[in-house]
């Protein structure tokens, strides 16, 4: 227990950077707080809205079930993106394994951190929705026990599931030379499958009956996720036996996972850290490239070498593919079922689709962490005869490689799905591309302003850094600002508005690029 607490303390100190925090918050610290709070407020508003909507549809008794469901999904989502790095990506592995600490304690400390972060998220969701439940009717004393147990246990199983998936992917890909690239692609395929499975399975929802949709979601979840079934039993009947079964299953699964992982932890780490090697290399011909191409190749290999990097920063484009496929499957059905007076809804969707695509493009901002990820390698960029412009260009080009081709393909497909005019089809491609260029350049500018080369794990840079948050949300806020007039004005002026948006964005992007490359040296 003592060792566990020590490890946890060290983990929190390095994560929160306690030793480097000054008395007064720096601009960077303030930005991190704003960057975290902003999406947080949006999510809180959404959760509260959902709870009130359930109450409106006379489904108040399901509010807690939904809070459990949302917490489960979000825990699974967050754990999926952080488990591999948290369990196997820490630089202190060698040090810890050489100390007289039990492997199981190391595993518990690693897993506890994933659980802890997810529990914080669950706490907010369940308390908020619980507050709506509390304020909209009468509650008994058991209500608080139900909430407390839910908060403390909901993220355990999703964290275990995400960890097991991460372990399987890493274990399978570790046999290959480019294991990181293979595991990154595997993760993307798993996400695509999980998100698209309900759509592709032919399960259809009638958007005109929201109550039915909400009930169906609960029923589906009840069937596929046993922990939800058990928790739901607590909510419905609330017998002592139900409580005990639910708690026992959660704890037993956690203990089995910890013990199992402790047994194989060292072997897995050795395997993941051992590289495939070929002892027969012979120097033959080497192809010469331009400096920009050499930097670009190095940069694109960096992207594919890190599962954390690619998974978090290419996620927006995965969402775009999911969005396109969902539109292809559902738009005809929606249009067929839509009452005549609701045709306007499809028109609005048609009008804002370039902006929805732009949002997803801005989520895929690789450049906002590209300089920070140089880490201890930065001496190479600093001591080689490289102009700042070339280095910046290489990082922008990698970002555009991720966003532009998929944006063009998706834009063309969506244009065909909507039966768009030539002009609208061009806008569907050009507007998100303009935002892609802006986002890439803005990401570099932000990263150079808030660069951090001394990180302990890539996750720290990719998910929790100032530049990552600002790089993503800066672009998203700009898209939202640009989209508001489009939602308000439909009709003939809408096309001109899009053209004006592209022009203004291009001018801003050019100015930002000039300012970035002429700024302080790297």
């Amino acid at each position, binding site marked *: 227990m003592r060792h566990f607490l020590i490890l946890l303390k060290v983990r929190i100190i390095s994560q929160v950077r306690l030793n480097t925090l000054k008395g007064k918050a720096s601009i960077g610290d303030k930005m991190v707080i704003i960057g975290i709070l902003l999406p947080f407020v949006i999510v809180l508003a959404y959760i509260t809205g959902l709870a009130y909507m359930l109450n409106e549809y006379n489904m108040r008794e399901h509010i807690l079930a939904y809070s459990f469901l949302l917490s489960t999904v979000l825990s699974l989502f967050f754990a999926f993106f952080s488990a591999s790095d948290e369990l196997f990506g820490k630089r202190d592995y060698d040090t810890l394994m050489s100390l007289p600490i039990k492997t199981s304690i190391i595993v518990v400390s690693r897993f506890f951190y994933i659980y802890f972060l997810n529990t914080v998220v669950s706490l907010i969701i369940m308390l908020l929705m619980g507050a709506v439940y509390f304020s909209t009717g009468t509650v008994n004393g058991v209500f608080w026990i139900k909430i407390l147990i839910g908060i403390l246990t909901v993220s355990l199983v999703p964290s275990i599931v995400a960890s097991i998936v991460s372990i399987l992917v890493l274990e399978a890909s570790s046999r290959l030379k480019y294991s990181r690239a293979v595991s990154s692609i595997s993760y993307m395929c798993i996400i695509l499958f999980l998100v698209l499975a309900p759509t592709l399975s032919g399960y259809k929802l009638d958007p005109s009956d929201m109550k039915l949709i909400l009930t169906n979601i609960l029923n589906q979840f009840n069937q596929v996720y046993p922990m939800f079934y058990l928790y739901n039993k607590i909510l419905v009947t609330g017998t002592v036996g139900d409580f005990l079964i639910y708690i026992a299953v959660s704890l037993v699964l956690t203990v089995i996972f910890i013990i199992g992982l402790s047994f194989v932890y060292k072997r897995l780490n050795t395997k993941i850290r051992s*590289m495939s090697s070929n002892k027969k*290399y*012979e*120097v033959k*011909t080497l192809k010469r490239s331009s400096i920009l*191409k*050499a930097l670009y190749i*190095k940069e694109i*290999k960096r992207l594919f070498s890190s599962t954390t990097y690619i998974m978090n920063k290419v996620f927006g484009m995965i969402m775009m593919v999911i969005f396109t496929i969902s539109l292809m499957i559902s738009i005809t059905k929606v249009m067929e079922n839509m009452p005549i007076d609701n045709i306007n809804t499809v028109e609005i969707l048609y009008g804002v689709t370039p902006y929805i695509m732009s949002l997803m493009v801005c989520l895929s901002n690789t450049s906002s962490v590209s300089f920070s990820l140089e880490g201890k390698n930065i001496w190479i960029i600093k001591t080689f005869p490289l102009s700042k412009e070339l280095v910046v260009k290489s990082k922008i080009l990698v970002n555009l490689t991720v966003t532009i081709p998929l944006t063009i393909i998706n834009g063309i497909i969506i244009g065909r799905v909507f039966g768009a005019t030539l002009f609208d089809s061009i806008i569907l491609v050009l507007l998100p591309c303009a935002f892609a260029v802006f986002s890439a350049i803005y990401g570099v500018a932000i990263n150079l302003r808030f660069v951090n080369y001394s990180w302990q794990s890539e996750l720290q840079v990719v998910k929790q850094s100032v530049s990552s948050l600002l790089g993503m949300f800066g672009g998203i806020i700009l898209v939202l600002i640009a989209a508001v007039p489009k939602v308000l004005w439909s009709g003939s002026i809408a096309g001109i508005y899009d053209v004006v948006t592209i022009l203004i964005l291009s001018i801003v992007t050019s100015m930002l690029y000039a300012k970035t490359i002429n700024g302080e*040296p790297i």
Partner: protein
Amino acid sequence: MGILDIKNFSKVYKGQKKAVDNISLSVENGDVFGFIGHNGAGKSTTIKSVVGILDFEEGDIYIDGHSIKKEPLKCKSTFSYIPDSPELYEHLTGIQYLNFVADIFGVPEDVRVKRIKEHSGMFGITESLGNLISSYSHGMKQKLAITGAIIHEPKLLILDEPFVGLDPKAVVVLKEIMKKMTAKGNAIFFSTHVLDVAERLCNKVAMINHGKLVYSGTMDEIIQNQTLEEFFMKELKDETFSNSSKS
């Protein structure tokens, strides 16, 4: 003017006293220049400022006549730098890294192949060049960094503690490479703790203590009737005495 001229250079870290205080020295073509001093004396700070990693306010540093502050790219095309702990791109293979360096310095294809074969062969790492750098040991990374650093035959090779972590054979190879380079008129500037290596290898030496240059001159002047180690200890002692008498 030498290939490297450090003029009245001082470096102050934010909120601290001077890490390096007004040092001046000159490295000529053909020199093997040793930069010696105890831990924390200011060697790495000086070297990092010379190669453009650290910014500085006082004095200037010239490489082949160009100021590192005003013409950094011209300076950086002239030298190669190898840090004490070479952190290389672990996601690249050894050969991809060497090809990357050759691309940055514009080394022709046939020349890069010839030089890689020669130097990687000398260090015995050729067969591992197809592997990811993340699989390399510390020593192998250092050998790869050296192979990369000399791929464009720099006029000036700057090394920070180059002999730490190298196996005995690699030390011999590195010394051989240094001798070959200086025979062609190129220069070497390196920091070291290993005084007997410096004594045997360097024709010039500078000694830094608590950020101040306490000696700069030729090796012959030093070792007329003492070893470099004896001279080093004597200088440190004198410096300590003068500091304590001041306080």
